[in-house]
């Protein structure tokens, strides 16, 4: 058997002399989101609370890392999201802003974390309150949600804070929900208000 294999191999190598050995060209991973930065800016004085969620290995099996968020009690914060593709050094935020008619951020949080908005956000029900920055509304007047305003509870709280970015081409409307379209981002953070 061994000799036959060698003979055949020799034949093959003869035949295969036209082999090319080029690797695929490097591609820009334009789709990838591997960094989401949450910046909570307090109204008035005080330092920004910045939380950076990152992906250690792209499409690999390792989990996305979502550090905990720590906010102060009874404080109004403006949350701005920055979404990046660090592999390409590219800001996805602008892309989302340009396609505001197809994208919308939905928020879900443990009841009682915030005095405004009350409730638990608009993931379960689109009617749930979220303080969207109306200046970001798309041409149809529907919110985008890169910028939102949050007033924390007067007493210490802890719970979860979840951000979902839905891609809803042609179906985004005043009534489209977090269950419509595809999730481009769906991250959950531990949060404390102290």
């Amino acid at each position, binding site marked *: *058997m061994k000799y*036959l*294999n060698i003979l*055949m*191999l020799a*034949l*093959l*190598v003869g*035949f*295969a002399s*036209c*082999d*090319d*050995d*080029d*690797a*695929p*060209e*490097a*591609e*820009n*991973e*334009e*789709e990838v*989101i*591997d960094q*989401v930065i949450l910046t909570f800016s307090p109204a008035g004085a005080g330092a920004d609370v910045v939380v950076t*969620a990152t*992906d250690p*290995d*792209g*499409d*690999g*099996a*390792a*989990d*996305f890392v*979502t550090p905990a968020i720590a906010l102060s009690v009874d404080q109004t914060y403006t949350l701005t999201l920055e979404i990046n593709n660090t*592999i390409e050094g590219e800001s*996805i935020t602008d*892309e*989302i802003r*340009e*396609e505001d008619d197809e994208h919308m951020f939905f928020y879900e949080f443990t009841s009682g974390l915030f005095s405004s908005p009350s409730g638990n956000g608009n993931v379960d029900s689109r009617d749930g309150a979220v303080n969207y920055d109306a200046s970001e509304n798309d041409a149809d007047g529907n919110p985008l949600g890169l910028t939102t305003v949050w007033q924390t509870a007067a007493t210490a709280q802890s719970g979860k804070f979840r951000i*979902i970015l839905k*891609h809803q*081409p*042609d*179906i985004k409307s005043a009534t489209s929900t977090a*269950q*419509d*379209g*595809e*999730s*481009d*981002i*769906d*991250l*959950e953070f531990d949060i404390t208000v102290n």
Partner: protein
Amino acid sequence: MRPLLILLIFFSSLNAFGQKQSCKDDCSCTVQGKVVDAANLKPVPFATVQLANTNKGTTTNEHGEFSLTALCVDEFDLVFTHIGYKTLTHHHDQFHNNPVIKLAPDDLILESVVIEELSNANAFKSNTTTKIQGKDLDQIKSSSLGNVLSSISGVSTLTTGSNVAKPIIHGLHSNRILIINNGIRHESQDWGQEHAPEIDASLIDEIEVIKGASAVKYGPNALGGVILIRPPEMELTSHLHGDLNLKGETNGRAVDGNLLIQKGYGNLAWMAQGAARYQGDMSAPDYELTNTGMREYSTAFGLRYHRKNLDIKSFFSYLDQELGILRGSITGNIEDLADAINDEVPDFTSAFSYSINTPKQRVTHTLLKTEAQYNFSNSRLDIAYGLQMNNRQEFDVRRGSNNEVPSIDLELTTHSIDAEWLHPIVNKWEGSIGGQWLYQDNNNIPGTNTIPFIPNYNNTRFGIFITESRPLNPNVEFDFGLRYDIQLASFRGRDSRNDIFRNEQNFTSVSGILGISKTLKTSGKLRFNIATAWRPPNIAELYSFGKHQFTNEYGFYRYTLEGETLSTSQVLDNNTLDVKNELGYKFIANYTFSNDLIQIDASPYVNIIDNYIYKAPGGISGTVRGTLPLFIYKQTDAVFAGADLTINYQHTLRWSSKISGTFLYTKDVGNNDVLFNIPPNMVSYGLSYKTKIGEYEWGAKADISYTFKQYNAPRVIRPEVFVDDPDYNPFIDNNANFDFTKAPDGYALVNLASELSLQKWVFSLRVLNALNTSYRQYTNLIRYFADEPGINFQLGVQLKL
């Protein structure tokens, strides 16, 4: 070892044969054959058989048989005439002996045809085979190849919506079955479950399915069976004639057409074919299936040249398909999946449209083939060269301008040379020896803006085989065959950091077949056949990496397991991980019985596959899109056992019935688990009526089939479980495979067909899913999201030119 040596010696001594005395020298050439009525296949006695341009001739006997002896030529035209029948001229050579001449009655649309012993007929008489041809094929050939094949008992389809259909033979599909299109192995990106064969069924003249493992004649991958596809035969002596088909369908508002024309000039013949299909969104009984339109264009040309002992055929075909995939079948993460499963109507459902957006596939396939046959006085040499170019683009739903950019863009070029020598009969041993060489180059076309899902690769494969059969007594025939293959592969890809990795690897295997066929006294026939087959792990099984539909999957070389922890940070190769070839051992028995009243075809089988490669759940991962289940490739041993049964019964001249059923049981023996996507059992009954009034022929048919629920399906873990507890690990105390929904319930389907023939015209009406039943098919990959299409009226007209 020894048979292989003998084989090599045989091969090298090829030139020594074939110089024997010709029958022309001593006027000892002969021809025998049989003349039958093309409509009812009854023998035609007293038909005239004439050697063209001579006065030599004879008539058929009461069994329709004729024989001409003492001829001084070994190639000639035979003219068949009989009152009430269309005259036929047939070009005969001595290497296609025993022709069956089907004479068409004058007043019928049928063309007279000749059935020669097929040149690329399957090698073994002990093989279990089924054919679709003629009228049966005409009626269904506007649908996809997979759907055409599923009319054969034991063959079903693995679909992705209604446009993408892959054949499944006895539970095996994709890389585990083989398609031989026009004598050439069809080479495409067939590792993907949602990659259908790029072959237009409307250009096909005849399909034959070999249900046994057939690696010996055809090479790797033939574990489940082989599908042989043949284009129209180019008759050397024929007037300009052809066939035009047009069809309209209500579901999908599709129009479909194909045209065939051909002509022969004695030693030259040609044919040309074209086909097109334009289809919009299909609809289920309760809603539109948005983005399920398709476009298909195909064309083929053939040229045949015949001179003395030489027969040369060239063939070119081109197919271009754009296939829409249900928009609502795309989900981002496991919560989207839960929502999509629970939605009554899929997301993104909108009004009917012909437009095709993402997700979609665009594929083209070009085949160029030249084959030469040289007849020695008592042996024959066949050589065929094939060039195939396959391009596949897959468009996912993506952000911004990337929506217009394919996320998979692959170009596969395959050269192949097949050589086979049908040796002289030696001591009643009849058979052939041959070799195959194949070279493949697969490249990712740059510009997808995503790291390639599979790497670039090259394959070089060489195989040699011998097939022999010998009658043991007048009723029993013995077959055997042996084959050796070697495949040399080189891979070049990019890891998730865009760094290049390379690997070279070779795969070898020996395959064999043993069979016996026995003709019974009672018009019955028994066949037994045991065969081995093999295939190397395919490119996706070795190297796939990343998101595919709503899961992340990792090939053998792309993950490591340390205890329970899955790591995907390094790229392995064959030095660090031994991935074995899949080896199949298939035993199949076949009983056929046929008389004027009843035809029975029954085949039980068992197929044992060692190192069966499958995708197993490997855990879950938190991604930016939320939780995604992970799948990894693993190997196990699997068993497939089942049986197919078909019975035709002719009640009266006009009424006939057909009963068929398939049964299949499978098991993952290695893990004591069940396998995914195994077609459920099915039974069907069909009732046909045929009559002839003057020049009109009218036929009608009703089929009812019942598909059972797949009882042998994996356990169910609803995606909500993962949503409610993001840290849920489904394998903590049970390592078994799971599915996100249970297998769909059983369902009954009714199809109706009616056909009216008048001289050159055939008008047909078919009603598919006549009761507009809402159902889901277990082997449809989008069964989570939507029902199958509802009622479909198909109105067709056929004109024989």
